[in-house]
């Protein structure tokens, strides 16, 4: 298999959500000592972009979208150790700390956003569900993150999103991180009221907004 062939098949495997194939191709790229950043940019990324297009067109729904995103993550898991070994840092669009706020155990929406952000080239640190509010800030500080993403499904727990933003202010960290909020009861009005930098009503919009905030 030549390079062009590998790159083409990578994109196709992502679009089809074929996890085994995406990972096998990642291993093949390593074996052939290909430029791994090129492999990501010209092989996998066009695939995930195509998936985004199919979603926008209404042909792909959540199962296809997220399966493709998971494939992307799978490929990255194979490539990451090689990139580190070669002391090449994988290109990252930015670092995201994400989680569902304290008191809320719903994490399907958060998982979708995390998956899609990772698939679109962001480095995602997923803190899981029912995350203590201080932990978002501690982790963001420790990891030198760019974004804090706060998910909430309940009208009671969405107040946690507001508290995190207040805590950032108290610690003189306002403006240091872009704060994004999401979840079923959340809307743009709420995001504006609490001073969040963005709100995405679904995972694809979340990716679009995050990209916009980094000037892409």
């Amino acid at each position, binding site marked *: 298999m030549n390079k062009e062939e590998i790159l083409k098949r990578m994109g196709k495997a992502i679009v089809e959500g074929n996890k085994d194939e995406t990972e096998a191709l990642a291993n093949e790229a390593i074996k052939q000592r290909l430029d791994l950043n090129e492999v990501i940019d010209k092989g996998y990324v066009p695939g995930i972009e195509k998936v985004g297009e199919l979603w926008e067109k209404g042909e792909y*729904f959540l199962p296809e979208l997220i399966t493709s995103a998971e494939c992307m993550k799978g490929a990255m898991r194979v490539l990451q150790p090689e990139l580190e070994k070669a002391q090449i840092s994988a290109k990252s669009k930015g670092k995201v700390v994400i989680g569902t706020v304290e008191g809320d155990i719903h994490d399907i929406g958060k998982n979708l956003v995390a998956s899609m952000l990772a698939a679109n080239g962001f480095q995602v640190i997923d803190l899981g569900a029912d995350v203590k509010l201080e932990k978002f800030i501690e982790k963001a500080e420790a990891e030198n993150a760019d974004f804090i993403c706060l998910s909430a499904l309940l009208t009671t727990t969405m107040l946690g999103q507001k508290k995190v933003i207040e805590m950032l202010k108290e610690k003189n960290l306002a403006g240091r991180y872009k704060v994004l909020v999401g979840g079923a009861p959340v809307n743009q009005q709420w995001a504006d009221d609490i001073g969040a930098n963005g709100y995405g*009503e679904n995972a694809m919009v979340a990716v679009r907004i995050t990209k916009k905030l980094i000037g892409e």
Partner: protein
Amino acid sequence: MIKTIRPKLEFLSKEFIQKIIEEAHEILEKQGVFVENEEALKLFKEAGMRVDEQAQRVYITQQLAEDSLSSSPSIIRLYDRTGEKEFIVGKDHVHFDPGSTAITILDHKTSVERKAVSEDLVKFCRLTDCLEHFDFQSTGIVSSDVPDLISDSYRLYIGLQFSAKPVVTGTFRVEGFKPMHDMLAAVRGGEKNLAEKPLAIFDACPSPPLKWSNLTTQSLIDCARAGIPSELISMGMTGATSPVTIAGTLVQHVAENLSGLVITQLAKKGAPVIFGGSPSSFDMRKGTTPMGAIETMMIDSAYTQIGKYLNLPTHAYMGLSDSKINDSQAGLETGIGAVMAALSGVNVISGPGMMNFESCQSLEKLVVDNEICSMACRAIEGISQRDEPIAKNLFEGFTQETQFLTMPHTRKWYREEHTFPAIIDRDTYDYWVSLGKKSIADRASEEVERLLKENPPSLLDDDILQELRKIMDSDAKACGISSLPEIKL
């Protein structure tokens, strides 16, 4: 795999059905039925029935009614314009078609009913043609820009041109049958082919109680001989033109339908006939005939059950509303009716698009109702065991992180298990706001425009079209009409 059951709605016990049928037979035998058509009276006499020619009243024995029942086919096969697509009318097959013979159309922009013209009828036919859940079209609108004399044949003339679907239609005058039959035969390539592969159903409405007018009787006879299925549309109004109790109306309904069925079988043994109707619960406060009343739907569902018991194909006017605009009432009456009809296993369900007591059609409602029909069709597919085991294997080694979105099982089944409506609102609030806070009627109106723009009309071959024109022109001429409206696409 465990067999999927078809969910079913039934109102009557077997004992109740038998009693209703028994009383219907007794009425036909002892009280008789009015038949204002000489040819039919002759047929009855030849069959040995007691006929009072002066009164045009005929007494039908239970024996003849039962013989007629056993010679009527339990299944009818209809074919679309190409003759390739087959639709089985019978068993528990369900087919929706738009409600027929509206005289007005609801103008979306002004929310006002106005007289319909040819252009509306063309749009209506084209729209019906591209809406997935209507298996049949209907000659649903009377055009006010052609003289009443030819409005029956003219509707069919337009319908055959702009939709390939089988058509539910009917005559408004005795002379209407010939040109309509000629047009159908022209499309099918001859009368024999048409009889083998019917393209149309003709509705025939008795006048309650228990009277067959000259026109409807002739339609029954002509259709039977041409192999065209007749749909018997009994329409008692409880407490006004039929007994006030639901069971009482059912007795009359069965008697009327049976007498119509006997006429078809006397005209031609084995002629296709559909046990149908459009009865209503008469509103004693307003003097109106609400098609959206729950009692109307109960009568429909119950006579359908009786029709099935008699082993006949069935029809009902359900899935329509009495509302004057596309509001909640329009949706709820149509929705309840369509779902009840589907669960009752009505074979031909006429109603979508209709409002205001069967007098008005709405293109927007037609689009909304298509989605209602989609829901009804999904419901009767029932719940299936798709896999063996059902799901326990999906939980093997499950963790707190387990989700189902990325499971191949999800991708395999979600589009089959779940439906995705086009214009029903399932958006988040903000997204809905960003789209302009539109009501379903507004979205439906946009969908009407989109569908008509994106789907070119399925037109007939030129030579058939010429033949249709010739038939229509000569029918018009015979009625003293010199010109027909120009049809613009």
